[in-house]
């Protein structure tokens, strides 16, 4: 534009759109005004104008956001909207794209609600660790709600139907309007004195303003500080009240709160019945098995013929007795007979004979010993003398002389047998081939022979 360059409308609109989208102040705008020309298109998008007495702006609420509306917008209605300012490029008209819309007057409450909710959340009031468990079988339930109206009626009838075992204490309170929050908080604190198992705090459905006391800090703190577990029961489905965040359990309606507070009698009854059946079954089974065992035992012989037990024992006893008798007698008899034998023994009767006998044997033995001793000595002495007088001992040389003599005798005899002696006397010895010839028939004519003389040999021939 500085260059005086001409641009298209489209470019301009795009440029403005871009510029606007960069501005954070236009990104989230809180706007209040009055609705006019409200139209819902078949696409589900809502188109309308928001105006005040001097100005107006087009507004669109797309289907996704419009379906969350909690009221039905109409022309002339004063509203608070939250949205983004933008330009619609094809017309160049600028508009607000509405994300959230509420009726004006309620709006302040929402702000307060969000501020309180955020603060309490930050301070830890909603933390799970603070939640107390709701007793399963309460005996005494407190209800902080209006004395009249559907809420208390629904709670009492529901509890009576489900769990008539419990007492209900109503702490009546205002539930809307001036002073209701203080009243609710006071009754919650007051109920702490009554040893309640569970406390239901709530009211039936209503507009956001009607429910407002349940968004007050004073109620939130009273619920938080309650020692009794609290079920919140504010009749609305869509949003939560602060009380719902604080309570130990949240119910969407008073009836639902009563259902959470007590068990169902018929369910418990069924549970009891089934326990009872199981109990009897298991007991019967046990008894059956024991009585079977007992029967088995009863069937044993011992019980059927009990006399067998003692007749057997009787027999045993008899046997034992007999054995006892027998062995006792035998022992006595044995001892007796030994005793008698002893009693009758000779020595016992003649005690001195034994000694006398021994003395006699002793005397004899000693006599014989004395006599024999002399004999033995004498005989040994004799042997010694004889040995001393033995010839060879006295003449040891006689032994050699004797042997010499004998040798000479044998030598002379041998000398007589020497053939040479015969030859000396004139005999000759004829040999043929070195062998002595003693017979003439052993020689033949022409044999060469040798004739031995005492002084030499002559060779000759047989003729």
């Amino acid at each position, binding site marked *: 534009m500085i260059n005086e360059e001409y641009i298209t409308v489209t470019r301009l609109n795009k440029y403005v759109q871009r510029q606007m989208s960069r501005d954070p102040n236009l990104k989230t705008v809180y706007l209040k005004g009055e609705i006019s020309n409200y139209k819902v298109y078949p696409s589900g998008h809502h188109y309308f104008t928001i105006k005040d007495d001097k100005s107006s702006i087009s507004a669109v609420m797309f289907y996704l956001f419009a379906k969350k509306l909690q009221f039905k917008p109409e022309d002339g209605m004063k509203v608070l909207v939250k949205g983004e300012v933008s330009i619609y490029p094809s017309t160049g008209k600028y508009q607000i794209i509405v994300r959230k819309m509420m009726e004006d007057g309620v709006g302040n409450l929402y702000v307060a609600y969000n501020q309180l909710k955020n603060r309490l959340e930050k301070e830890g009031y909603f933390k799970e660790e603070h939640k107390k468990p709701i*007793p*399963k*079988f309460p*005996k005494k339930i407190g209800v902080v709600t209006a*004395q*009249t109206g559907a809420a*208390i*009626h629904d709670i*009492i*009838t529901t*509890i*009576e139907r489900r*769990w*008539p*075992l*419990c*007492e*209900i*204490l*109503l*702490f*009546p309170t205002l539930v809307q309007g001036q002073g209701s929050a203080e009243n609710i908080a006071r009754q919650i604190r*007051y*109920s702490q004195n*009554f040893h309640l198992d569970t406390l239901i705090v709530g009211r039936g459905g209503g507009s956001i303003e009607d429910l407002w006391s349940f968004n007050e800090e004073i109620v939130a703190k009273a619920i938080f500080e309650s020692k009794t577990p609290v079920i919140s029961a504010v009749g609305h489905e869509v949003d939560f009240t602060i009380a719902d965040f604080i309570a130990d359990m949240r119910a969407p309606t008073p009836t639902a709160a009563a259902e959470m507070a007590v068990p169902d*009698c018929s369910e*418990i*009854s069924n*549970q*009891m019945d089934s*326990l*009872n059946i*199981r*109990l009897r079954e*298991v*007991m019967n089974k*046990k008894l059956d098995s*024991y009585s079977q065992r007992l029967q088995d035992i009863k069937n044993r012989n011992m019980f059927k013929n009990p006399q067998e037990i003692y007749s057997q024992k009787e027999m045993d006893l008899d046997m034992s007795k007999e054995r006892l008798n027998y062995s006792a007698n035998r022992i006595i008899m044995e001892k007796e007979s030994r005793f008698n034998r002893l009693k009758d023994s000779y020595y016992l009767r003649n005690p001195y004979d034994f000694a006398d006998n021994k003395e006699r044997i002793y005397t004899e033995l000693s006599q014989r010993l004395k006599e024999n001793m002399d004999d033995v000595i004498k005989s040994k002495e004799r042997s010694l003398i004889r040995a001393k007088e033995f010839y060879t001992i006295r003449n040891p040389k006689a032994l050699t002389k004797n042997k010499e003599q004998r040798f000479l005798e044998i030598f002379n005899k041998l000398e007589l047998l020497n053939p040479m002696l015969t030859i000396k006397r004139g005999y000759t010895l004829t040999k043929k081939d070195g062998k002595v010839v003693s017979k003439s028939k052993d020689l033949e004519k022409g044999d060469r022979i040798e004739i031995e003389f005492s002084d030499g040999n002559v060779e000759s021939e047989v003729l």
Partner: protein
Amino acid sequence: MENEENKSNEMSFEESLKELEAIVRRLEMGDVPLDDAIDEFHKAMILVKTCDKKLSEAKESIAHLVKENGDIIDFNVDE
């Protein structure tokens, strides 16, 4: 026996029911000696009886209104 009954009367319904469940479970385990089992069974029967009695006796829970001055008065919802 009366002692047991008193005891189970004093027990809260929840305790009674829990005890009853525990006994049934114990018996179903099967290793309880007969004498103990009979004792347990009697205890359980008393629990069943008192629980039944509690359930059937209280036909209508009693609703009261606590006044701010502490007075407690009957409260009837059927209006």
